[in-house]
């Protein structure tokens, strides 16, 4: 799946079953757009959680999605990651990969990482093990039975630990971390998978102001190498990281642009910002 396995890759046991693994396909970003979402509609028993939604995400950008509760932000992430089927529309990863044809694990291996709204780390595993399980490597049954960490992988885990600032907690079980640390660990788990696109759902909910600030730094530092889509409620936080903001309202895009443009947009003021104290 990746070049850096070199010769060992030739006799990896799960190569025998390679036909079971999805073909390793690199995302084609020649037009500079990494995610195309066109005309997507999701119908929950007559209620349209997403309604003819169009959204394009450029390669390497940091995009904020905002919108009132129930606007469909989480549902949108569910559609992109293969958890929810959409009734209409198309979702393409780069020019060539039709995400609607793939299952959740396949989409993860294609290079799309997702952070849930609530932190979901494996609490009985140590921080280190959580990262180990997230590494971009073979995920087949036979391979994991005898998998050992390579030197490069260990170095990479150290690097991720460093980025998320949890070096001191590496052998601690994840269940013992604070709420904010769990959120960072989960972001670290995404990084360990070396994704192209990160989908991050409400990362700072429940964080202290200091933790929020650190998270903002972390996310901005990730953009560029990765494409990052952040869903957030906290306008202060959005203001501190956003370059482009997209406003969702009742399952479709209401407005899109820089933070100032959004704040002065009369539609947005009416339906969303107007409600804010």
């Amino acid at each position, binding site marked *: 799946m990746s070049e850096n396995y070199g010769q060992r890759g030739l006799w990896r046991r799960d190569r025998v079953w390679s036909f079971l693994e999805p073909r390793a396909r690199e995302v084609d970003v020649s037009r500079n757009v990494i995610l195309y979402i066109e005309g997507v509609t999701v119908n929950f028993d007559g209620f349209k959680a997403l309604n003819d939604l169009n959204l394009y995400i450029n390669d390497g950008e940091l995009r904020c999605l905002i919108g009132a509760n129930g606007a469909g932000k*989480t549902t949108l992430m569910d559609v992109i990651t293969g958890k929810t089927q959409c009734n209409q529309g198309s979702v393409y990863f780069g020019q060539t990969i039709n995400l609607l044809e793939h*299952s959740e694990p396949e989409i993860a291996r294609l290079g799309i990482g997702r952070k849930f709204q609530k932190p979901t780390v494996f*609490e009985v*595993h140590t921080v280190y093990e959580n990262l180990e399980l997230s590494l971009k490597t073979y995920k*087949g*049954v036979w391979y994991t039975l005898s998998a050992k960490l390579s030197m490069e992988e260990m170095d990479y885990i150290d690097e991720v630990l460093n980025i998320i600032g949890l070096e001191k907690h590496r052998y601690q079980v994840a269940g013992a971390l604070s709420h904010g640390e769990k959120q960072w660990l989960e972001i670290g788990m995404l990084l360990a998978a070396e994704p192209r696109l990160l989908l991050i759902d409400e990362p700072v909910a429940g964080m202290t102001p200091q933790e929020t600030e650190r998270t903002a730094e972390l996310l901005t530092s990730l953009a560029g190498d990765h494409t990052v889509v952040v869903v957030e409620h906290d306008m202060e936080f959005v203001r501190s990281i956003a370059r482009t903001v997209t406003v969702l309202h009742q399952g479709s895009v209401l407005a899109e642009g820089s933070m100032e443009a959004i704040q002065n947009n009369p539609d947005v003021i009416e339906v969303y910002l107007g409600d804010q104290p």
Partner: protein
Amino acid sequence: MSQFFNALVSKGFFGKRIRNGVHMFSLILFVVVIVCSVSNLLVPEQSIFYVSTYTITLLGKYLCFALLALSVDVVWGYCGVLSLGHGAFFALGGYGMGMYLMRQVGDRGVYGNPDLPDFMVFLDWTELPWYWFGMDQFWFAIAMAIFIPGLLAFVFGWLAFRSRVTGVYLSIMTQALTYALMLAFFRNEMGFGGNNGLTDFKEILHFDLQSNETRVGLFFLSALVLIIALLLSQKIMKSRFGRVVISIRDGESRARFLGYVTDHYKVALFVYSAVLAAFAGVLYVPQVGIINPSEFSPINSIEVVVWVAVGGRGTLYGAAVGALLVNYAKTKFTAVLPDGWLFALGALFVGVTLYLPNGIVGFFEQRISFLKGDSSRELDSFEVKDKKSVSEVEV
């Protein structure tokens, strides 16, 4: 004895090896089994150190149950798949062995037919059904006794896990599976002896099944297989595969988003578990001398779950401890109050769930790590928490 033991430990002979419950349990079991075997074969019957053949066979039976409990712990304790149908895999393994033992009877049956087991002669059958062919070969019979339950687990697991059946629904399906098999095996036309099952065995690999030596041999073999299964399971659970399995237990959706095809893991683990259960059945039948459809009855499978809960789920050796203790209690209890056992079992389950959520083993491990002032989790139990370990509202 204990001095010898201490010396071994303090000399660091086993040093790192005896640092966890599975190793400790295996060592103790091994020593006990050797002592019992020697006391049966070499000590004269009048001596107080003599262990009767009856006791040996009883212990051998318990060891098979311990292996069955281990197989349930592997899927339930580590992957959260509560199977209430593992008795089916156990019984199928037992029937495989029973078929071999039946063919070994040869012309010494009541009707003296060299090819047909007695019950077939009784039903006026004239030739052996095709699925009995080859079962007179020991290795083929054992292979089938393991392969068929494994295949059934594979097909069942594939269908159930792929359609994402989980929780109570899965448990009910496993009950239905074993119940359906019980009804099928009750039918005479199935060719497995109907409700009488297979019995009146004479010998195994030309060893007389009634002799002390054979009994001790089977007992010893049961212990050996249990120890190997414990060590192998521990190795699997300590590999990355094991960590993925635990992750699936605690947050299957998260594991999928990390790129793991969780159904494959569950199917693989389920098949491994069924194979362990089948081995238990294979070892069980020659020791008790009979296999009949009641082994498929749903209540048997539920009992196994109680053993695991009592011992402590998610610890491997806890399952074995639970099986040994509960079955010992059952033997004692039914001698006094034959009809009360199911009530006692129910009470035991409720009591353990309320007061010992991590089972006996979990309770002692917590005490020990508390005494050692040890907050790391060197002890092998991945504690099974009551609350869901992963907070996942959106799944």
